[in-house]
């Protein structure tokens, strides 16, 4: 059986289109030797056919390619016609792009910022125990958060759907020795009726830092960086005293209303400021419950509600949109489109 190397030698040696045409007839024409050999395969035994068939087919394929290429090299018009034949048309379809959910987009932007400041990203279970959702966070037994009206309990005793991402703080304190810096985005549940502005499921963003010599100044400057990142450098923020059992001292970060610039409007309920969440220095009781020496370590924590932020950013008027599907995404539009 002739080999492809021998055919290649002959093709390479051909000096004209005529010689190439002769080689075509010799091997690939109706009575060409390779074509004849392929036809003859059916005469062979199964064993022979299995052995010789693939080899012969491969020689045939390569010979066709070699001779065609050589023919093109002798004919510019042949090249043109090959290119024409090879040309493809553009599609009229537009490429669609996938979209991340606005909550995910926002969480990513925040995570990116905090990762750049050395924070880890933490997540935890959504079915929680009373201990990690309340007790280890210094929430008193008769605190309203524990009421059936506020907390959704599941049928199994002492288990509930977490009402706050502070439960992630409690578990991180229990599971990791300080120092650490974490942020923890997550879904929380409260026993509320669903309507345009309220939902029983919403999204929180928790931040916790435990280390030596951590101060309120660190907390304030961290939140200032966050708000500037999310709302621009000219954002005006303030910190006022606020009570939360988890922290002492506790503060409420407010942002000057971006709609009325502090004059008072319907968005800020006339006060000129928008409440952004809660924060403060971690209560020493919480550190002690986690077995952390509060004389050596201090820390801060903050918790922010994401839904209102994202509603404002994406101009979403109905909170139910978040968990209601993706009809709102335009198929060809991307978040950072040009």
């Amino acid at each position, binding site marked *: 059986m002739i080999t492809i190397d021998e055919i290649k030698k002959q093709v390479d040696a051909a000096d004209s289109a005529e010689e190439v045409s002769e080689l075509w007839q010799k091997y690939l024409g109706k009575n060409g030797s390779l074509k004849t050999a392929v036809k003859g395969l059916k005469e062979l035994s199964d064993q022979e056919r299995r052995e010789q068939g693939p080899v012969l087919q491969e020689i045939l394929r390569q010979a066709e390619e070699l001779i065609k290429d050589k023919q093109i090299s002798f004919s510019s018009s042949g090249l043109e016609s090959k290119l024409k034949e090879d040309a493809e048309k553009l599609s009229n379809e537009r490429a669609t792009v*996938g979209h991340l959910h606005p909550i995910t987009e926002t969480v990513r932007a925040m995570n990116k910022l905090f990762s750049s400041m050395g924070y880890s990203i933490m997540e935890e279970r959504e079915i929680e125990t009373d201990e990690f959702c309340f007790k280890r966070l210094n929430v008193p037994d008769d605190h309203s958060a524990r009421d059936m009206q506020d907390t959704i309990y599941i049928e199994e005793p002492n288990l509930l759907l977490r009402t706050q991402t502070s439960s992630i703080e409690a578990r991180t304190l229990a599971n990791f020795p300080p120092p650490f810096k974490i942020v923890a985005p997550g*879904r929380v549940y409260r026993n509320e009726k669903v309507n345009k502005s309220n939902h029983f499921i919403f999204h929180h963003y928790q931040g916790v830092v435990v280390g030596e010599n951590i101060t309120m100044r660190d907390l304030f400057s961290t939140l200032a960086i966050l708000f500037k990142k999310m709302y621009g450098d000219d954002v005006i923020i303030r910190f*006022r*005293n606020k009570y939360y059992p988890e922290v002492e001292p506790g503060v409420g970060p407010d942002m000057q209303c971006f709609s009325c610039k502090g004059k008072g409007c319907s968005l800020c309920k006339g*006060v000129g400021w928008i409440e952004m969440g809660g924060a403060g220095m971690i209560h020493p009781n919480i550190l002690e419950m986690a077995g952390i020496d509060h004389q050596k370590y201090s820390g801060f924590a903050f918790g922010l509600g994401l839904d209102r932020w994202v509603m404002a950013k994406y101009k979403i008027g109905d909170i139910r949109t978040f968990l209601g599907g993706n009809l709102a995404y335009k198929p060809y539009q991307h978040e950072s489109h040009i």
Partner: protein
Amino acid sequence: MKVIYSQIKKMVAGLTASPQEIGEALTMTGFMMDSFEEIKWLNKTDYLIGLEVRQNRGDCLSVFGIAKEVAAYYGLPLELPTAPDWSVKDKGFVNISVKATEQVKRVLALRISNVVNKESPEWLKEFLAHYDINSISLLVDISNYVMIMTGYASHLFDFSLVNGELSWLVNHEEQKINTLDKTTINLTGGELIIEDKENVLALAGIVGCSHAAIERTTTDIIVEMAVYDRSIIKKNSRSLGITTEASNRLSKEMSLEAADLAFQFLIGTILDNAGGQVETKVYDYYPNKESAKIIEFNPNLPSALAGIELSHKKISQILKNLYFKINEKDKSNWLVTPSIERLDIESAEDIVEEVLRLNRYDAITFNAPPKIEVYPNITPDSWYIKEKIRDFLTANSFDEILSQPLVSEKINKEINWRDYDMVITQNSVNDEFPALRQSIGTGLLLQVKEHRKKNVFPLAMFEIGKVFGKKEFEIIETESLGITKIGGNELSLKEFQLSVEKLLANFGISLVEYKKLPISNEAFNQDSAWFIMSGEVVLGVMAKFKPLTKDVKAYFAEIDINKLIDLIKKFSDEPLSTIELTNKLVSLDANIELSNGQSIRSYIIEAEKMMAENLWSLSVIDEFALEDSVRYTLRAVYCGLSDQAAKAEHLEIFSLK
């Protein structure tokens, strides 16, 4: 809590701040101003400042409390109104018994005779109107007025209608009571009540009852002021659905000691306005006396926690303005005694908060970035994997959706494919969604139906979230990925399968096989539903949804992310195979024929194992269906072998098949 500006001004000597400035100062120190209104009060223009009082500051649900805060903030003296002294005609006591000893902390009571109950003066009616309280009669209005001024609620009873002793007890029977405003309430047991021999006279700390209520004709009254365990008031108020000004205050922690001042003010105000004669001494049930707390406090702590310098002098001044007593043992050890009404002050950190809030948090500058220290990265692998999934799927035109994990039992049953039981909530106010989802597909299935209804497709969506279940009493909560595609007849299961497999291959899981799904549900076409297997591990499910309509198809896959992570963890960190520029690749084709029942995927996996050393790639380039079999043309590419050696290996492998 609302306060009238001129009242505050009268109690804080030398106060020059405007009402807006006071509102702003209180906002910054813990009482957010939530309303501000210009009003008429005593024929003059005045201002009503509305303040949010947090749960731990029951002492500030009163005008006195807020005035004290304002005085402390501005460092001005506080001058609270005083009640006139009175004399006692008789030395006896009101006949009282407290049976609910765990729930009742203090009761102050006495009897006044010869009072004149009449219409209230204009100033009192006007005052109450600003607090949205209707004027009833002078005595009732005084009780409400004193509550707003001092924070302590009281009950007044018509002595002539009280039969026997007044008892405080926990109700144990079902019974109906009529309140002062003629509402009928069904008691079910567990409520703290005040009763005489025959009748319930009040729901303690919440509302009075019609029996023995004060009328215009009443002349002889029993006045009682009590402080309770706040949890019973809160519980009763919630369970009966009644919230009153009294219950709102008494469900907060209230000082037992400060009740004396409030009671004095109440009696003095009654005598001053309704006349009368005090008939008895003050009955005082006060079994566990509240003692002053002494807290060890390091005055360097505020500076250490705030990150700014605060002098001891400044700290001392702030605490004195709050009427805290200080015993300076040495430079780092003070003994601080908070004022009696400040039950929220329990630790040194609480004192720090007092110092910092009255010094205002805007004294803590935050222009400098926080100090960056390298702390260990404790981010779990699952986070990175989920982010990678999101990137992959959005790059492949899938949109991310989020749906609610609380769903109806019906939708759970419709799409569940796991052998878990449902986790049910016991008290969701949203009756339509009592169960936690068992499959991430609940939201996607609803979306598929919705988009079909609105004729919006083709569409590709995914969701990442928690799914829940119960198995042998163990609660299972696992992270799940759901993917779905909906489209016309151009959509194929193979294309969808490839999308899912590419995603898995992206994590190094390329040897995926399928096993018929043994569980049926309403959503899946049972003949097109499989477990996605990696070895013996069930990674998830792939299925075709039952036909939506003739021309619309939808596919669904769910991957258990926790199992995916477990698999990925098993992989070694060996580097990927690479090919040198000088390495030779030899490409050879082979025809094979498999009977209809045989899987080409399994065949390839077996062949790959045989060719492991020198295989670069093996793929199906053509297939042709025959009567009882399928003929496939495979293309194998060998690496690092000469032409002849590759051919020899090729022949050996495929001739064996």
